[in-house]
């Protein structure tokens, strides 16, 4: 029965593809892409290069924003998670308010909000805010100095230094802030899972407060934290695909452009799925390896 259904779908698809004169297969990857990409990291790209190259740029963009997002979300999430365990009512209240509000609003709304905040609320480049020397905030993005060059206003925008586009900034901010709320809850549950007796014993041996945290609580909490943390990292990578909605050229956004230009929808979706499955499996393999290391033997 299943084979029959599959055969029916395949024969329909072949007939439809012929009717629309779409050649199947991955031959299109070598053809000239012909569209520009707003920003790229590490890889050089121009419109004359192939679709394969364009998709590679998209993949690198996805991985870049995900990698930075994972680091920022982990730091922020740990801080908020510990704040929710604080003895200070005010600190605890701020942590709880953060988690409750961020978790109950869709990520897409948050991304639009951050993007609107950056492009509408920040001044133009000529009146850019300069919170630190040579760090400029404007509606064209954030410009940071490097060792080699400092950002300088030239015409309508800054030149030199490192620029972070509003799209990248909004996506990174949105992903980090959103995932941090979930990581905070995982961290909190992990710390709560450490039996009270462990803390009391550590205090009785005369360890300082920071030593209690570093040598007794964290190593034991990590065993509880790592498995759900891995799935949050996976969610962050998958959520980075929402970039398409605010115009950051990630893999999905570039695959979407490719599908619209070539009509090769099946191949495009297959590429997206294959790439994300590979990333998912790699992260879970890495996390399993780490988990095996911290687990009790």
């Amino acid at each position, binding site marked *: 029965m299943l084979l029959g259904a599959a055969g029916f779908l395949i024969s329909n698809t072949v007939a439809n593809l012929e009717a629309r004169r779409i050649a199947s297969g991955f031959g299109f990857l070598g053809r000239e892409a012909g569209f520009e990409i707003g920003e790229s990291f590490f890889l050089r790209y121009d419109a004359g290069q192939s679709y394969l190259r364009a998709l590679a740029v998209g993949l690198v963009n996805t991985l870049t924003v995900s990698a930075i997002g994972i680091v920022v979300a982990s730091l922020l999430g740990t801080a908020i998670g510990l704040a929710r365990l604080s003895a200070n009512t005010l600190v605890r209240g701020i942590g709880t308010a953060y988690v409750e509000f961020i978790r109950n609003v869709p990520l897409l709304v948050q991304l639009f909000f951050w993007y609107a*905040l950056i492009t509408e609320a920040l001044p133009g480049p000529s009146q850019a805010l300069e919170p630190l020397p040579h760090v400029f905030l404007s509606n064209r993005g954030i410009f940071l100095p490097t060792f080699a060059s400092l950002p300088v206003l030239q015409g309508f925008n800054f030149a030199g230094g490192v620029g972070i586009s509003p799209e990248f900034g909004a996506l990174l901010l949105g992903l980090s802030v959103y995932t941090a709320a979930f990581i905070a809850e995982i961290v909190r549950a992990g710390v709560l899972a450490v039996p009270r007796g462990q803390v009391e014993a550590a205090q009785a041996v005369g360890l300082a407060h920071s030593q209690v945290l570093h040598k007794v609580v964290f190593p034991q909490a990590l065993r509880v934290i790592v498995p759900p943390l891995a799935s949050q990292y996976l969610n962050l990578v998958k959520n980075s695909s929402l970039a398409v909605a605010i115009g950051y050229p990630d893999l999905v956004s570039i695959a979407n452009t490719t599908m619209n230009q070539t009509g090769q929808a099946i191949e495009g979706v297959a590429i997206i799925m294959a790439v994300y499955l590979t990333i998912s499996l790699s992260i879970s393999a890495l996390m399993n390896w780490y988990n095996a290391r911290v687990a009790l033997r």
Partner: protein
Amino acid sequence: MRRLFTVALLLLLAAALVPFLKWALIEAVWRPDPAACRAAHGACWGFVVEKYRFILFGTYPYGEQWRPAAATVLLLGLGILSAMKASWKPWLIVAWLAGLCAIGVLMWGGVPGLPYVENERWGGLILTLLLATFGLAAAFPLSLLLALGRRSELPIIRAMSVAYIELVRGVPLISLLFMASVMLPLFLPAGVSIDKLLRAQIALVLFAAAYLAEVVRGGLQAIPRGQYEAADALGLSYWQKTLAVVLPQALRIAVPALVNTFIGFFKDTSLVLVIGLFDLLSTIKLGLTEPAWSGFGVEAYLFAALVYFVFCFALSRYSRRFELEPRRITALTPN
């Protein structure tokens, strides 16, 4: 030292909150007047005041908008009714079926007195609520089959369930929505076509089913082996055992996790914006493209956040009630 820290934190909080409240309330413009908004320093809530009907009902014919309004109230009423334990009786299913039929008649029309409205014109809050409700209603039975399939002793069924669940959970929802909007038409025989709304709904159902299946599986695993063995000893068939003994207990255990998945799914319906459906978030975004109102995105998205927050927070408070009384729920299971 501690008191000093609290005071410093309070000052910091005030330094952030006071300008925000000044912007959001005191200096805000509530009149739907873009010129006044641009002159003022505060927030411009006039956008929401002017566009509220578009945000709630999308491009539904203006004179007929009492129909989606009535459908929204009906749907919310059914939701609130289902939240009350006293109404967990067989008649609730009848109420839902009758309610959904009434909503269908209200939205589509085509009966005397109600002109037909094609579903390309549906939009706004009611579309978000309908996508979430019908998505869950269709995904839930599918997820039961997938969860049972994953624990089945038949290798082919087990392998197919595992492959489906892991494949769908491994890819972003956006890729499934793209698949539904560009690939689904290719699968159908010539002459058959399904509209954009249904295609998006299918993608959402397939997506939700995989996640719900894992939650149900968690519930299935929490049931002691003795229950299975006792059912086998009584000579019950597989389906008798599953329907009368296993599933009722597993679902009770899984309620808090199920509600959390519902919340996630409700938030995820906002992604249909990417393939061009006019849900709550899309109508807000579309309202901003009008030149007079462009540049008030911060206010508009804060409003969107508030609407989603009200729904999701209410649901999460509700699910917490079950987490607080796990013992009482497990105590109920033997009946």
